[in-house]
């Protein structure tokens, strides 16, 4: 299927003279956009799904759906938000499928300790973070990551998650508090 084709196969097929599929975006633009967004999107998918292999698959699927969407975008951030919205929906669908399959390990219950760093302090922090994230719902993980790792605005997060921007602040407040408690920095602090 998708990942099985080799680069040589692809080149050979192209050399055979088949027509180029019509995407709205040209290859050069896509390459630039991919270079700017793919790593961040991969990190997002790994943290939301908790599964590195699944994140690899969803990354490719996300870019394919993005290319096939044939949409035009007002700006780079609009385009980027659209990409993350596609990824969020795919991650949600993947979770539903895993729930339907009712496997012994449901997506998100096992959060991989992603970057394998030789730095002990970093490894410990990753382990703490992975444990904390495993106790959040996928949607909560997504919102936190977009807000504090991707630096997205409330409007952008609302667009990606399909929520109203006005409801985002109290939701983020609650999830952030939960996450802080899970990280063990604060047992349960109240608001000011």
């Amino acid at each position, binding site marked *: 299927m998708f990942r099985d084709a080799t680069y040589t196969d692809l080149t050979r097929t192209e050399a055979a003279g*088949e027509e180029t599929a019509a995407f709205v975006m040209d290859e050069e633009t896509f*390459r630039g956009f991919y270079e700017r967004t793919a790593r961040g999107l991969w990190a997002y998918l790994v943290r939301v799904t908790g599964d590195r292999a699944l994140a690899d698959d969803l990354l490719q699927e996300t870019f394919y759906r993005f290319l*096939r969407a044939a949409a035009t975008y007002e700006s780079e951030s609009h385009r980027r938000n659209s990409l993350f919205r596609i990824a969020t929906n795919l991650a949600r669908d993947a979770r539903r499928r895993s729930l339907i399959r009712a496997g012994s390990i449901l997506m998100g219950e096992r959060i991989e300790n992603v*970057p*394998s760093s030789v730095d002990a302090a970093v490894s410990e922090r990753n382990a*703490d973070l992975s444990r904390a994230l495993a106790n959040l719902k996928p949607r909560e993980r997504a919102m936190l990551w977009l807000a*504090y790792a991707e*630096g997205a605005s409330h409007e952008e997060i609302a667009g990606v998650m399909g929520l109203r921007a006005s409801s985002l602040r109290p939701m983020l407040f609650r999830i952030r508090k939960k996450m802080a408690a899970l990280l063990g920095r604060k047992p349960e602090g109240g608001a000011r």
Partner: protein
Amino acid sequence: MRHVECRFEEDVLSAVVQSRWPERVDPQLQAHVEGCGICSDIVAVAGTLDADHDEMLSAAVIPEAGRIWWQAQLRARREAAEAASAPITWAQVAAFASAMGLIGACFGASSTWFQAALGSIKSGVSKFELAAFVSSVAAAVGHAAFALGLVLIVLLVPTALYIALGRD
């Protein structure tokens, strides 16, 4: 009332993501964070996630853009071909079914025994006579195997053809 926002949270978040926290921030802001649940949560959560984000970006192993592009091209082509072939398949099935129907109609129009059986059924039904009905049924049953075969051809062959082509 329970507050969900603090007017300093944007400043605190900026300091954290710009790696200015805690050394390069105003001492007053530091003092505020110590007493503010919202801002201290932001420091804890944003600091951890932002650091993890940087780690993951450097650790990420992603396919080359060109590979993704050409795989997408191949897949789009394949899906377009599949989408284009689906209506043709349906058209083929419909044409075949029509042809079978036409053959059946010609057979019905030219076969004397079939017309006789139909006439018997018609008269039997119109007169509500049991004896005539039984005789017409008996006449039809005499050729039931042939009629059944015709029905099977008209109904089942297009279905089988569709399934066979659909699997391809």
